[in-house]
């Protein structure tokens, strides 16, 4: 009888040990085999075939294990070697400046360009301080400080505004001498039926005809009104004042 009230026959003495998976093979030679160090001296004989299996596993490659080399090299040529050449030529062609001088210099250059662009826009809008406006007036032809707003009409703001279909009102306000854009257009514009090229005029090259997909739907006089600057030879004194105003910025 056991202490728990159970008879001895009910508690068979099992021949199990504490560790069911315990093996006569020690861990040290196993770890040596797994580390690739071979079978240590004094290891059990039962591990010798295992060592031979592992040695056979790391034997020299057979022929069928080297058959995929061509495909791998082709993939390498496409992915690594090929793009390297393309990248090199591309670097020399377009990205050389950025790669050599660095991203910071490129960003600084972009900021400078943006700053100059904004300053030029402000100069043409007459929004700069007096000294800066005079400097812009001398250097890039911006209107001088204190010049009437309509003097900028033909050269800059109104000139570009007049080329937008939706800005007729602004063009109307911008033309000098109290001459409305609509009124002026009747006199300024060439008839579409006039023959020959338009005569040479200052700042014609600064104004490009807009790309308007539906331009053909417009009446012809409007097309020419908004695509070309005003012609001065048919306007008389008022129109010459207009162009004189634009020339002031250059002279």
């Amino acid at each position, binding site marked *: 009888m056991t202490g728990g009230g159970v008879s001895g026959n009910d508690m068979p003495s099992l021949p199990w040990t504490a560790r069911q998976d315990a093996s006569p093979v020690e861990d040290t030679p*196993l770890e040596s085999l*797994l580390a690739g160090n071979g079978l240590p001296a004094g290891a059990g004989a039962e591990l010798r075939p295992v060592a*031979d*299996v592992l040695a056979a*596993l790391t034997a020299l490659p057979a022929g069928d*294990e080297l058959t995929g080399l061509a495909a*791998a*090299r082709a993939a*390498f040529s496409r992915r690594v070697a090929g793009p390297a050449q393309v990248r090199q030529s591309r670097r020399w062609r377009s990205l050389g400046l950025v790669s050599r001088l660095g991203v910071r210099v490129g960003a600084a250059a972009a900021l400078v360009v943006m700053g100059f662009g904004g300053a030029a826009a402000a100069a043409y809008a007459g929004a700069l301080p007096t000294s800066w406006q005079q400097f812009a007036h001398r250097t890039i032809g911006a209107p001088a400080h204190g010049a009437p707003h309509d003097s900028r009409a033909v050269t800059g703001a109104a000139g570009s505004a007049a080329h937008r279909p939706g800005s007729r009102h602004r063009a109307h306000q911008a033309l000098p001498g109290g001459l409305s854009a609509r009124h002026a257009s009747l006199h300024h514009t060439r008839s579409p039926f006039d023959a020959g090229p338009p005569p040479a005029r200052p700042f014609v090259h600064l104004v490009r005809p807009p790309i308007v997909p539906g331009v053909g739907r417009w009446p012809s006089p409007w097309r020419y009104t908004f695509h070309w600057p005003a012609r001065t030879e048919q306007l008389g004194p008022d129109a010459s004042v207009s162009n004189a105003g634009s020339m002031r910025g250059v002279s």
Partner: protein
Amino acid sequence: MLAAAQQGSEAAFTRLWLDANPALLRYLRVIAPETAEDAAAETWVQVVRGLRRFRGDEAAWRAWLFTTARRRVIDASRRRSRRREEPLHDAPAEALPVTADAADEAMERLGTQSAIALLSQLPRLQAEVILLRVLAGLDTNAVARLLGRSPGAVRIAGHRGLRRLAEILSRAGVTL
């Protein structure tokens, strides 16, 4: 060699491939015997794709290579998910199928194919641990990271695998 391959040297890449592909193929022939060649090819495509971004030493390179191969196998098995495999991790050695062909072949000539055939009889985890440690030359911690197991579990699985391999060989009568 690895740096040269990353710079685009085809000769260096060839050396890397010749050095690693046999071990990779043997590993794949154990864990994915039906699709080993395809998995190896896909692995190298993946490796080539990410070769420039790889950073690490030789051990890290081997771990990356075998990790990529293992993921290819897992992806392929997921695609063929209709075929469900029973896990053999805890199967006793007596329940493992011991093919007479493999044992006979091992007795006749203990070549690489015979070794692969013998290792294929082990449970997947034990076989993988043995292959990754012996073939890839990875230490216990690297194998544990690769398999997503603890280092202790990896060590035990490796030891059990070798013991089970010794039992299989003794039962097959391979004594040298």
